[in-house]
């Protein structure tokens, strides 16, 4: 529990929720990142602009955060290149097959009480916890 950061986590969570709420009320769409990115592969006519704009906002976020005078948090990625490739392929394929990720199913889907999203979130949380258990505690990676 030594790394527990309840305040910043809650504030960040409220911001993510506010973004999803804003996007739904203004644009009428779900702020699901895998769906927004996946809709560009291949690009779908008439739906390229807003997708790119949303992604541009995400890319600019770290720069805006630094410009506000705050120090960026750490980003510690401890994985070999082959593991990154395998994980990336699985995440890309899996989120499209399952029609959502942490944002679309977890934040937006649960927020609107969708049974599909609640089940999907339980499933991906369970397999993620199991994967960490196997890699850290059984394989010692």
């Amino acid at each position, binding site marked *: 529990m030594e790394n527990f950061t309840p305040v*910043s986590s809650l504030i960040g969570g409220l911001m993510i929720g506010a973004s*999803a709420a804003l996007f739904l009320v203004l644009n009428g769409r779900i*702020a699901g990142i895998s769906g927004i990115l996946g809709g560009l592969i291949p690009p779908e006519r008439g739906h390229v602009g807003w997708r790119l*704009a949303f992604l541009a906002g995400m*890319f600019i976020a770290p*720069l805006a955060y630094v410009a506000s005078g705050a120090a960026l948090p750490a980003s510690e990625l*401890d994985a070999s290149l082959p593991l990154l490739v395998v994980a990336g392929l699985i995440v890309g394929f*899996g989120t499209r097959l399952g029609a959502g990720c942490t944002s679309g199913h977890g934040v937006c889907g649960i927020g609107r009480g969708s049974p599909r999203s609640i089940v999907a979130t339980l499933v991906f949380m369970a397999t993620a916890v199991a994967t960490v258990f196997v890699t850290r505690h059984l394989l010692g990676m």
Partner: protein
Amino acid sequence: MPLILSAFASGLLFGLGLIVSQMVNPAKVLGFLDIFGHWDPSLALVMGGAVAVSSLGYLVAKRRGVPVLAPRLEIPTRRDLDPRLIAGAALFGIGWGLVGLCPGPALVGLTFGPTEIFVFVAAMIIGMAVFRLVPADWPQVTFRREATRVDG
């Protein structure tokens, strides 16, 4: 144009939320998923806070009926569970647990995290492209009933 600006603002706020909550730190995410080790419950608060506000947004959007800037709400209506949903979610969880990156933090990490994130994002995009090759009815799960065997 207003639709583009509001999408940009939403993406910016989303990215800032991921930074403030430290979701952009794969080590922090793995600490949350490691419930059998030194568990860090922080991300449960990220999820809780995010779900609370997004559900308020949903209530407002439903009440209005029409979005402020778009002609109609584009909300998924399916409620049934199917093999694609389950298999996709299960796969996604495995990939997430392997390195601690899900799509949002991976994209924000492109302009801020370690350069290895580019490898992950490139592979993720290839994974999404591969999905386009998958037939619409895959995977199919047929519940086969064992033929009744009469011993004799």
